[in-house]
């Protein structure tokens, strides 16, 4: 719950938080200005504006095909934008060849040189930069210590485990201190446990070295764990961007709400707006909802979002609640999730803490699921597709 209170604090009260949209251009590591990428008729990216501050950890999150890799490749210079401008470290890099951008990249399949040892792999970017042999040796040794792989320096990549290989490929980036490290689903090939371990390791390296990182994933948990800021992509556009808690607690669209976390979405029509409260008429009843920042007018369609963990099963009557029959309850360790079938056929999910010795609701019980008014969030209806 400390999470919630932190997010409720105004941004100005939190001096360390980075608010990139108002950050001066000089402190931006990367800036995309109206970048569009077309493949023939198909627009893979549509007028993307994005600014990444120095030292920030930004995650590109989105479903398959939403343009995450395309965006990364544009920044790396592997493909050229159809229009728009890319600025890296204050320098226009739109037409700059890949090898002059001073970036680092970590791939899902590691991309380590099979004919070089671990040491040689990490030394390669330093040799390219023409460093003295003694300095190369010192730097490689240091970074091998940092990732705790000094004992495998003489091995070939194929003699390492997947996790070790990915650490080497990370080390190969860190060693030459690039302005920005791009990572395209770097942990996608690892099993869950190793992935979580590596997430922490990457976070640690980011905190210790202060390198700006742009990280691609389609795993929402990974994005929530690691990022200073999440950029949610949808169909070649930025759907929403912000710190993880903002994306979780204040989604602005149905897409955002559904993509991050689970959600109850109840469609309806705005009946009245007064005193900062909207009354929404739905098939399940009339509910008061806090008015959103954007203007709403009576008569327009809208969707009510309530997160399952903000719903409780209760007997107490109140203005916000629905009645339904418990169809299923599943246990998820510390929490239990009830699936309620309402009269009109909608399913509502309620998530409660699982406490021992509590007489919980049973299957086929008819119960009331309620939420407090301030936990509801009014979203615009999804665009007709």
């Amino acid at each position, binding site marked *: 719950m400390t999470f919630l209170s932190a997010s409720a604090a105004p941004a100005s009260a939190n001096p360390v938080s980075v608010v990139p949209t108002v950050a001066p251009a000089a402190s931006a590591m990367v800036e995309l200005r109206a970048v569009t990428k077309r493949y023939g008729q198909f627009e893979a990216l549509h007028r993307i504006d994005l600014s990444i501050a120095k030292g920030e950890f930004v995650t590109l999150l989105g479903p398959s095909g939403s343009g995450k890799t395309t965006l990364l490749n544009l920044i790396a210079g592997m493909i050229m934008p159809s229009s728009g401008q890319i600025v890296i470290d204050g320098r226009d890099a739109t037409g700059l*060849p890949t090898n002059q951008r001073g970036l680092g990249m970590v791939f899902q399949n590691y991309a380590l040189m099979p*004919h070089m040892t671990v040491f040689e792999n990490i030394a390669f*970017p330093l040799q390219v930069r023409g460093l003295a042999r003694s300095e190369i040796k010192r730097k490689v040794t240091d970074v091998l210590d940092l990732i705790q792989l000094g004992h495998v320096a003489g091995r070939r990549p194929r003699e390492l485990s997947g996790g070790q290989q990915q650490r080497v490929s990370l080390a190969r980036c860190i060693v*030459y201190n690039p302005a920005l490290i791009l990572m395209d689903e770097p942990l996608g090939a690892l099993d869950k446990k190793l992935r979580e371990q590596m997430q922490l390791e990457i976070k640690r390296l980011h905190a210790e070295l202060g390198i700006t990182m742009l990280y691609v994933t389609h795993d929402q948990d990974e994005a929530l764990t690691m990022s200073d800021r999440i950029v949610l992509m949808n169909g070649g556009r930025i759907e929403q961007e912000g710190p993880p808690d903002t994306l979780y607690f204040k989604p602005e669209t149905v897409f955002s709400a559904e993509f991050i976390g689970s959600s109850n979405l109840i469609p309806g029509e705005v009946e009245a707006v007064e005193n900062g409260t909207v009354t929404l008429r739905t098939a399940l009843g009339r509910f008061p909802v806090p008015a959103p920042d954007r203007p709403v007018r009576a008569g327009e369609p809208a969707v009510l979002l309530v997160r399952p963990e903000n719903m409780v099963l209760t007997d107490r009557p109140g203005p916000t609640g629905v009645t339904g029959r418990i169809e299923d309850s599943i246990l998820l360790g510390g929490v239990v999730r009830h699936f309620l079938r309402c009269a009109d056929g909608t399913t509502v999910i309620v998530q409660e803490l699982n406490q021992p010795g509590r007489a919980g609701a049973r299957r086929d019980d008819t119960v009331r699921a309620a939420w407090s008014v301030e936990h509801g969030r009014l979203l615009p209806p999804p665009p007709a597709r």
Partner: protein
Amino acid sequence: MNPLFGSSAIARRVVTAAAWVCYVFLLVPSLIVVPISFGNAGQIEFPPREFSLALYRQFFTDPAWWGSMVQSLFVAVTTTALALLLAVPAAYALARSNLPGRGLLRGLFMMPMLVPVIVLGLGLYLQFSDWGLLDTTLGVVLAHVMLTTPYIMISVMSGLQHSDVALETVASIMGASRRTIFFRVVLPQLGPSIAVGALFAFLMSLDEVVVAYFLTGTDSMTLPVKMYSSIRWELTPVLAAVSTLLTVLSLLIALGIIALQRKTEAQS
């Protein structure tokens, strides 16, 4: 398993035996020169009545013979070196760049494989007589470079298909120039396929007769041409010794190619 023969051990043994019969049938005519080469210096006879190295001695003491052998080796080595210099970068460029007209270029490089050798020989003969390249070592070498380049390219391009483009991308992101990428990332991985191509080119040049026959004269005669004319004019038993030497050399190179291919397969 092959449905035609089932998986029964007997059927498999029959097939293996048949394959061996074919091999022997193909090999015996060439291998028959081996015993002959150890015969008497006087005449060609099989089986030889007495064992001697006289024919080999004759080969290595007659400057016309070993001279053409040296010439052939020189031509083959030079051809291989030049063809490598041409084919490896060309294959890399064709495989990795997306320059327009790439298909056309590839077709141009592969052309010598498709044109009948006799036509090529005639064409080169006419062209080289204009340029004054007839009966010169340079002339044969140029012609052989043309003939062998596509084979090296094919070998290298298949090697490139096995190597991961992401490695070149990542090297480029790390700041490496195209040159560095070629020499430090691409070339080391292509070692075996380059070696296979090179051995193949060497072998092709070493026993190429048709084009060399058109282009060489007394000053630049290669071993196969010398053998061919000697068959026509004198039919000396030294031919058996030469053939044996060539066969052994080819066999060694072929074994080398097989070993290298095994190695590449094991790697990928």
